[in-house]
């Protein structure tokens, strides 16, 4: 693992960019009798970086789990690469919303990345035939390549529990990428990170998106660390969704309509967005310390 972070190692993109990777039509989800959201239309193309925004409890994670086929729709349809989500699981790289691994987790980062590749295979990892040995070598190189791409080579062989939140997150992104997925779903990957690490991870995701032609859906609480990297946003609130470029969606009138309450969007001198007046108290797009 000698390739420095950020080097465009040879990564053939898995498909033509511009193809529709994820499509939702009139999608609705009802959980426990409550409608989480309804009438959501969304199309994400390969090579496109879309942020999923909205207040706590708006159903951002549920929307992601719908695309993964883990939550059924009550109306509408969801297609991943033109198929039912359950048929295309191997085409989706997923990083769930989670706390980090605690210090007692005794497994190395590189093992976790490798599990992303072969964790679904039954039987012993014996390579008896020449073909199997060749495949194993290719897979080992793939694991190293994706760890380098994530800039995690320096600490990949240390136990994951001993690493910082930012280091863990980069290894988990490597794990999500290792199978060359067409779609990458990242649920709050910036959540536990400090500002420099938020910027590093946002830049990494954009690079992956561009170089590998992956469709990226990234759930975030705060749009500001992503502003320079995004193609579009989808904003979930009040059971409805609004999709489009940042400057068209995150505006006072649009968000007021979505929330059904008066919302103002302020722009700071360095271009950050601050949403004021949203009904949910903990929700804000400001700087978080």
């Amino acid at each position, binding site marked *: 693992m000698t390739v420095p972070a950020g080097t465009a190692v040879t990564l053939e993109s898995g498909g033509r960019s511009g193809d529709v990777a994820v499509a939702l039509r009139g999608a609705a989800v009802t959980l426990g009798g409550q409608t989480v959201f309804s009438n959501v239309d969304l199309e994400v193309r390969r090579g496109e970086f879309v942020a999923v925004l909205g207040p706590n409890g708006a159903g951002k994670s549920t929307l992601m789990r719908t695309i*993964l086929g*883990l939550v059924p729709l009550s109306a509408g349809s969801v297609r991943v690469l033109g198929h039912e989500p*359950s048929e295309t*699981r*191997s085409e*989706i790289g*997923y*990083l*769930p919303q*989670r*706390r980090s*691994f605690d210090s007692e*987790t*005794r*497994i*190395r980062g590189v*093992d*976790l990345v490798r*599990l*992303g590749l*072969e*964790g*679904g*295979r*039954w*039987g*012993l*990892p014996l390579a008896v035939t020449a073909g199997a040995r060749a495949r194993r070598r290719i897979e080992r190189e793939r694991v190293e390549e994706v760890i380098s791409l994530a800039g995690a080579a320096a600490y990949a062989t*240390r*136990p*994951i529990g001993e690493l910082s939140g930012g280091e863990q997150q980069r290894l988990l992104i490597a*794990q*999500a990428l290792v199978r060359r997925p067409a779609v990458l779903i990242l649920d709050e990957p910036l959540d536990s990170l400090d500002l420099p690490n938020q910027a590093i991870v946002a830049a990494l995701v954009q690079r992956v998106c561009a170089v590998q032609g992956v469709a990226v859906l990234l759930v975030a609480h705060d749009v500001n660390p992503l502003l320079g990297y995004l193609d579009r946003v989808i904003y979930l609130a009040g059971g409805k969704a609004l999709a489009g470029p940042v400057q068209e969606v995150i505006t006072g009138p649009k968000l007021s309509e979505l929330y059904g309450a008066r919302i103002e969007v302020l722009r700071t001198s360095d271009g950050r967005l601050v949403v004021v007046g949203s009904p949910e108290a903990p929700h804000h797009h400001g700087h978080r310390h």
Partner: protein
Amino acid sequence: MSVGPTFSLDLVSDVRELLAFPFMVNALQAASIVAVLAAVVGWYMVLRRQSFAGHTLSVMAFPGATGAALAGLPTAVGYYLACGLAALAIGRTGHSGRRRFATESAAIGTVQATGLALGFLFLSLNRSVLGGMETFLFGTFLGVSHDQVLTLLVVAVLALGAVAAIGRPLLFASVDPEVALARGVPVALLDVSFLLILGLAVAATSQITGVLLVFTLLVAPPAAAQLITAQPVAGLLLSVAFALAVAWLGLGVAYFSIYPVGFWITMFAFGLYVSVRIGRWALARRRRP
């Protein structure tokens, strides 16, 4: 008892003396099989933090043995039935997601208490089993027949074969259940399967080693191995090596001493775990002064 065996400083002749007795050869064979089985299954158990479940399953041998005696069934049947049923009962609580093992512990505690209560009920209904209590706790290691060794071997091969078949998906589901589930790994099924394998291993070995000893071999060697290395294959091999060393040492020393074998194996396992802990602590202190 006539004059007991005497320990000399000539280790070769000591070992030769030890192996001259068929009962010692049987005991060594049984101990080796048990050590390998417990080390491998225990490695997963410690990684999954299911030591409490493992302890409960080993305690289930108590109602199993007393119940079988009461019903006039072979003791072995009682062991397998009780451990299997308890494994299913714990597995049925089937919480998925990241807090599953935390919520599981309440269910396990209930199963353990119920098992113990039933055991005491069976015991009070049939006093004749009482004489076997020490055997039940510490095993009949030195009275193992050749047939018992063969049965043990068959069970160990079955259990280890099952672990080999599900090895990688089980590892994936153990350390990263959400991503494994999203990738289509049957996490809930693996949870129950592992508990059944654990129950099988515990039932088979506790008949010979006693309840306390099977738990010793199940926990201490894998826990020590995981403190030393976070690499899965190395950890499994080290765990097996530790368990074999502890079992052989315990048997050898017990032969020359007046204390039971269960005591010695447990003491060596405890010593191993404590010294690895201290070693790690000292290493960590030296790294950052």
